[in-house]
């Protein structure tokens, strides 16, 4: 399931839902991304996150389908927040249930790496001195390309 939302989420609740995915699940890998205080600029006070409604969900659905074709994925959960966020806010959650840990780790990392370079989200950093649209990192592109 995929959710794009302004509201915060509770990783414990999401984890419990993943636990209920069936008796075949032997491993759950989760990732949570937070707003940190330095990115392209130092002294970041918050972020504004924009997305392309409709396309975002389609792209992530495609990534989950790709992950499910490459690894044993019993269930996958992706939550991405949009709008105004402040320091230490949760931005993104990815959780994957598999029979075994290697598939859970790989699918979870693939989803995060691929999401960063293909899902239409854009971050704007907000600092005391102004705002700045974040530039795509070549290191993120390299991490995503490594899965191809």
């Amino acid at each position, binding site marked *: 399931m995929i959710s794009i939302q302004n509201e915060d989420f509770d990783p414990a609740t999401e984890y419990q839902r993943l636990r209920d995915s069936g008796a075949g699940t032997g491993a759950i890998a989760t990732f949570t*991304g937070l707003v940190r205080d330095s990115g392209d600029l130092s002294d970041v006070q918050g972020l504004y*996150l*924009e*997305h*392309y409604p*409709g*396309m975002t969900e*389609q*792209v992530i659905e495609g990534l989950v389908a790709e992950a499910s074709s490459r690894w044993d994925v019993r269930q996958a959960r992706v939550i*991405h927040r949009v709008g105004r966020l402040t320091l230490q806010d949760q*931005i*993104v959650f990815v959780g994957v249930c598999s029979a075994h840990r290697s598939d859970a780790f790989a699918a979870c990392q693939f989803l*995060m790496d691929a*999401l*960063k*370079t*293909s*899902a*239409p*989200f*854009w*971050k*704007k950093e907000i600092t005391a001195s102004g705002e700045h*649209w*974040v*530039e*795509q990192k070549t290191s*993120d592109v390299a991490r995503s390309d490594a899965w191809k």
Partner: protein
Amino acid sequence: MTADTFTVRFFARLREELDTEQLTLPAEPGLTTGAILASLAERGGAWAQLQGKQPVMIAVNQAMAKLSTEVRAGDEVAFFPPVTGG
């Protein structure tokens, strides 16, 4: 939107710098996203960046597209900077 037009949407930095969220343009036979970008860049000013050094990502009907992708009446084209979510 009428039957012989398509829409162009802009996001993030491009939306702000062009001060434009959406355009409605006339469809023409054989029109490609690359030709649309070239034509918009001719408006000059901030629009020139559509043919500049900074990469512009392209979607047609909410799927990633190329400069050679053909655009038909009723399509939704989008131009945006490289994505930075996660």
